[in-house]
């Protein structure tokens, strides 16, 4: 637990936190520690500590005095934010307009030398009947290999699930290969797929250790469609996000429910991947662990509140992993890596702007970095001057232009799916033909061919092919990554 003598730490806020932020942090802290809800030993003392801190920090005079006498703490990390907009200015038009904003946040500087944060990982393996044979064997081998690469401070647990979950290996660091063998080797495939069972067990394993000391992550590997427990999973993902536990998913083959898994990962700031067969499972695991090892902060979240008259139409995380973000005001963006930007693309719709104003606020918000010994808040405002002249002809900055152009591809396949769902395969066909030619024009030949094949498939089957649907979705999603790695 962070140092409790400091009032800012007690409320889990930075020294720069606004009055509103202090109030909000206080309410959140009270909700967690109030003796009526939290009967743990020590909770009452925590509750009283929070009261004391809030009494001081909420009063500007007392806060000033406290700040003046406070021990200087370690410097706030240098975290840069960069904002790009699709337009230099907003136009005074008597109808709504759209503006895109690309937000980058990156931690720079000497912080590079900071020690790696230890990981607390739980692997959740689907051992339902469909995993039988080579799939499960390859997976077992890959899991054993990756666990042996973990560091001595890292914790790892392994869960298997079908209709119910089983803890194959409880949370521990550097298990011996004998223990690994005895825990994992005997796993065989049987039963159905109930993802919630697996997630819940992993959640419990991870929660055994103090969460703020680790980068906490659940890695779910499944090839099946979970039935009836989706809502439970989503609720669990939301509590995981609040506790800084990320969930990443790897879907194998064509059966699994991509929308569900995307949502699960997006809620917690994880990543979601699709592979047709298990030959790429090792790459995925390697990549996941390497990424988590690069963490500078165990979690970064972004809260964004559109100004009155502004509506957020969509949010898409582009870095470190491309994923559409769920519609909400607070986004969990996963870990913040050292020296690597996090990038999110927002789409806003703005109501007609009255002529008399020169500058319009689009949205305000803050990044919250969770990092021991304490958290940091980086507030920001998105705004644009109002242009009297239309700035048609001024090309948008190339990075945001590229992102929007690739987002268009993703949206086209998404719309084609909606077309099919609403009984308009003809429209879907045409859309995929268009998508294919745009992809071809961008030099994405293999994806263009997939789109073309899907169009033909829809023409004869009035529906997507199961593989093609996922290939197109994750293919266009990956195009959003600047280097497409």
């Amino acid at each position, binding site marked *: 637990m962070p140092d409790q003598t400091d009032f800012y730490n007690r409320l889990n806020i930075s020294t720069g936190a606004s009055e509103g932020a202090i109030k909000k942090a206080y309410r959140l802290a009270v909700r967690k520690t109030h003796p009526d809800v939290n009967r743990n030993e020590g909770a009452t003392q925590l509750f009283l500590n929070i009261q004391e801190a809030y009494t001081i920090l909420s009063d500007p005079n007392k806060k000033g005095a406290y700040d003046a006498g406070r021990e200087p703490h370690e410097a706030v990390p240098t975290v840069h934010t960069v904002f790009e907009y*699709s337009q230099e200015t907003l136009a005074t038009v008597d109808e709504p307009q759209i503006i895109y904003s690309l937000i980058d946040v990156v931690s720079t500087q000497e912080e590079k030398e900071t020690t790696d944060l230890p990981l607390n990982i739980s692997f959740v393996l689907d051992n339902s009947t469909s995993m039988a044979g080579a799939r499960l064997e390859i997976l077992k081998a890959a899991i054993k290999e990756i666990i042996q690469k973990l560091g001595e401070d890292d914790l790892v647990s392994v869960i298997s699930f079908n209709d119910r979950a089983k803890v194959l290996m409880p949370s521990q660091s550097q298990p011996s290969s004998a223990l690994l063998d005895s825990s994992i080797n005997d796993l065989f495939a049987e039963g159905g797929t109930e993802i919630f069972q697996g997630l819940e067990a992993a959640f419990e394993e991870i929660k055994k250790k103090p969460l703020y000391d680790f980068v906490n992550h659940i890695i779910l590997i499944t090839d099946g469609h979970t039935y009836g427990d989706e809502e439970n999973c989503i609720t669990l993902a939301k509590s995981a996000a609040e506790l800084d536990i990320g969930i990443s998913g790897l879907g194998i083959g064509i059966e699994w429910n991509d929308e569900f898994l995307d949502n699960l990962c997006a809620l917690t700031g994880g990543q979601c991947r699709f592979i047709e067969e298990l030959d790429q499972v090792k790459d995925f695991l390697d990549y996941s662990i390497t990424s988590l090892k690069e963490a500078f902060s165990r979690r970064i979240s972004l809260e964004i509140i559109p100004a009155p008259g502004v509506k957020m139409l969509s949010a898409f995380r582009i870095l470190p992993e491309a994923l559409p973000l769920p519609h909400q005001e607070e986004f969990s963006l996963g870990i913040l890596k050292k020296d690597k930007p996090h990038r999110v693309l927002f789409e806003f719709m703005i109501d007609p702007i009255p002529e008399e104003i020169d500058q319009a606020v689009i949205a305000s918000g803050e990044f919250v970095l969770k990092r021991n010994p304490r958290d940091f808040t980086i507030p920001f405002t998105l705004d644009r001057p109002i242009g009297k002249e239309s700035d048609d*002809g001024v090309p948008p900055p190339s990075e945001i232009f590229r992102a929007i152009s690739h987002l268009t591809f993703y949206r086209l396949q998404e719309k084609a799916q909606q077309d099919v769902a609403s009984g308009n395969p003809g429209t879907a066909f045409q859309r995929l*033909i*268009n998508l294919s030619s*745009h992809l071809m*024009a961008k030099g994405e030949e293999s994806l263009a061919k997939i789109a073309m094949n899907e169009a033909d498939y829809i023409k004869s089957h009035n529906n997507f092919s199961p593989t093609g649907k996922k290939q197109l979705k994750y293919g266009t999603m990956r195009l959003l990554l600047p280097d497409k790695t």
Partner: protein
Amino acid sequence: MITCKVCSNQEYDGVLFCGECGSQLVHSTDGNVNTFIYPSQARGLEIDISNTIPKKLLENKTFILYYPEAEEVLNIPDQEEFTIGRFVDGQVITPDVDLNQYEGFDKGVSRLHATIRISPDKTKVHVIDLGSANGSSINGYNIPANSEVPLNHGDVLSLGKFNLKVILPKELK
């Protein structure tokens, strides 16, 4: 609102790409508005036409449709808009350009297959597929029916399986 030049979909100001067909809606860096180009993918039709067509035929023409199979230039009327199709006895509306003489029927050309529209300043040419039975494509890519799609020099326009090469003489060296 902005109207997409390709599919006539309406989008709010500030949108950069048409949400319906994916075409770019704004000026791009090279200042070109109609940047929607179907990539040249029709293989085997990349022929050099500059020597096969007598120079005389190219004079004073905005737009030429060349039929490589017969090595002939289609006889098209000198007007801003005309239709291409196949003349059939008893047809009420007849096409301006009749492809019967080139076995249009066997190649899947509809009676009223497509309209070609030339901009008044003679700089741009568009094709509109009129909901033909076998569809039209540009460079091997099917185009939507009933919407205006720009034609560029060197494109291969296929009406059903009837392939035509688009030539804009001003683009010829």
